[in-house]
């Protein structure tokens, strides 16, 4: 199995508070890796390390290495190119105060793409992938911020796909979406898996069970265990804490 991301000895601190405690694991190419764990266990921090947006938090310090396709991400000069290789969907939907079209065309444009026909093509494809196209195709010039919460979240997903990422990170993407839409997006994720590697941070353990190839369990900044989803959700995972968390008897 080819490794997409290799994490070794990753430690993140905010001031004197440890958010990630020397974790090491690999993410395989074209897998959906579920990342589960209670709040404050370092899941979101981990995503911020990968696309180096942790650099915007002044008090954060990082040790250890993260390699993307064998390249240490700290040595990448064009951090903007790195961020475009990674699609990021945050828990709360953020429609940028631009039209729906401009929301999706934002990343390709910042990367320098100007050709109208290519932009049109990207906008339509990404909105379709995010299961939003049918609802908005007749009003692409309305503001993205005027959409409903669930629609904005799908717009966010379309935007994250617009720069054709190799890795798609979803941080509790279904918090603001209704169950039906969630299911539609989950179907989309299964098809996207053939094109990209997906990191799925979720509070819904059942979502990880449904989608993930493998699942990692984070707890208080430690990686308790990472294994195939079948084993994590079996009666005999590697750690009792995993079993308790997955079965809801935790804490």
């Amino acid at each position, binding site marked *: 199995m080819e490794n997409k991301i290799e994490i070794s000895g990753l430690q993140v601190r905010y001031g004197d508070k440890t958010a990630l405690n020397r974790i090491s694991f690999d993410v395989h190419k074209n897998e959906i890796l579920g990342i589960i764990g209670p709040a404050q266990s370092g899941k979101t921090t981990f995503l911020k390390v990968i*696309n180096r*947006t942790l650099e*915007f938090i*002044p008090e954060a310090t990082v040790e250890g290495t993260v390699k993307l396709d064998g390249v240490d991400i700290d040595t990448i000069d064009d951090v*903007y*190119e*790195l*961020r*475009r290789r990674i699609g*990021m969907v*945050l828990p*709360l939907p*953020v*429609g*940028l*105060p*631009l039209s729906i079209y401009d929301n999706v065309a*934002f*990343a390709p444009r*910042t*990367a320098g793409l100007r050709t109208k026909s290519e932009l049109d093509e990207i906008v339509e494809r990404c909105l379709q992938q995010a299961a939003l196209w049918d609802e908005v195709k007749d009003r692409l010039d309305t*503001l993205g*911020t005027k959409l409903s919460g669930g629609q904005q979240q799908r717009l*966010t997903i379309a*935007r*994250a796909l*617009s*720069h054709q990422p190799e890795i798609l990170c979803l941080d509790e993407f279904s918090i603001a979406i209704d169950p039906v839409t969630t299911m539609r997006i989950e179907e989309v994720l299964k098809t996207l898996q053939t094109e990209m590697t997906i990191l799925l941070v979720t509070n819904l353990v059942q979502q990880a069970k449904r989608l993930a190839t493998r699942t990692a369990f984070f707890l208080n900044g430690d990686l308790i265990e990472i294994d195939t989803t079948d084993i994590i959700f079996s009666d005999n995972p590697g750690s009792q804490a995993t079993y308790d968390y997955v079965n809801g008897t935790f804490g």
Partner: protein
Amino acid sequence: MFTETEIGRQKRRIENVMRIFFLVMTSLMIIPLLLIIGYLLYKALPVLSLEFLFENPKDNMRAGGIWAPFLGTIYLVIVSLLVSAPIGVFAAVYLNEYARESWFTRITNLAVVNLAGVPSIVHALFGVGAFVLFAGLGESILAASLTLAIMTLPVIIASTTEALKAVPMSFREACWNLGATRWQTIRRIVIPNSISGILTGVILQVSRAAGETAPIMFTGAVFYKAIAEGNLFAYNIAEQCMALSLHLFTISTQVPDVTEGIPYGTAVVLVGSVLLVNAAAIVLRIYVRTRKKW
């Protein structure tokens, strides 16, 4: 079932008393303002005319119009804002969007807040030392405008900061996640959604620059200077000028036997121009509120 209890009656009484109290306070604020403007207009009516605006003061400022001080004030306001607006706005963008929290930004922000509270006479003394004497500009429109610019700068930085902070942080994070640089984020998202607030802050400084007397008294404003009437380019910024605020002071206190309406007319023009400019800011704000984007 819905009979009023003693507590309910009491709540209603207090509610009424408080509403009247706040209404009285609001009236105390509005009534003096209306009285001042009404009184000024009443007293100024005999002299107000277009000639009053476009004629130089005559007869040792006992008669004539206010052309020279009016144009002087316009020069001072425009030149000072041409300096303070770009510096203030861009400095605020740096402090908000680029600078990390550090001792440098903390000291700068502290300085901005404190400078905004410095009395204008102190700015005047600084202007005399820095621009008139040290920089060798002499008493001139340029020196006076730079002094006014120093005075308005901190407030412009503060108001621009407010406008920038009104743009949610989540917009910036979303842009960064999409691989946008800070500049791309500022240009496409932050500035378009804060420009109205920024402009409002700048426009409100017009009234301060126009109204202050102390900063210009020793740096570039003179008691009397005749200029070509009706010529908008009658002043040279390396020379001194008259100004409405100083002129009002002069004819009210220093010159005997001034035609009665002239000081009031001068005040009306000063207040009127300021209100006109502020109205522009208000219209801008209303226009933007109707097309708020989130």
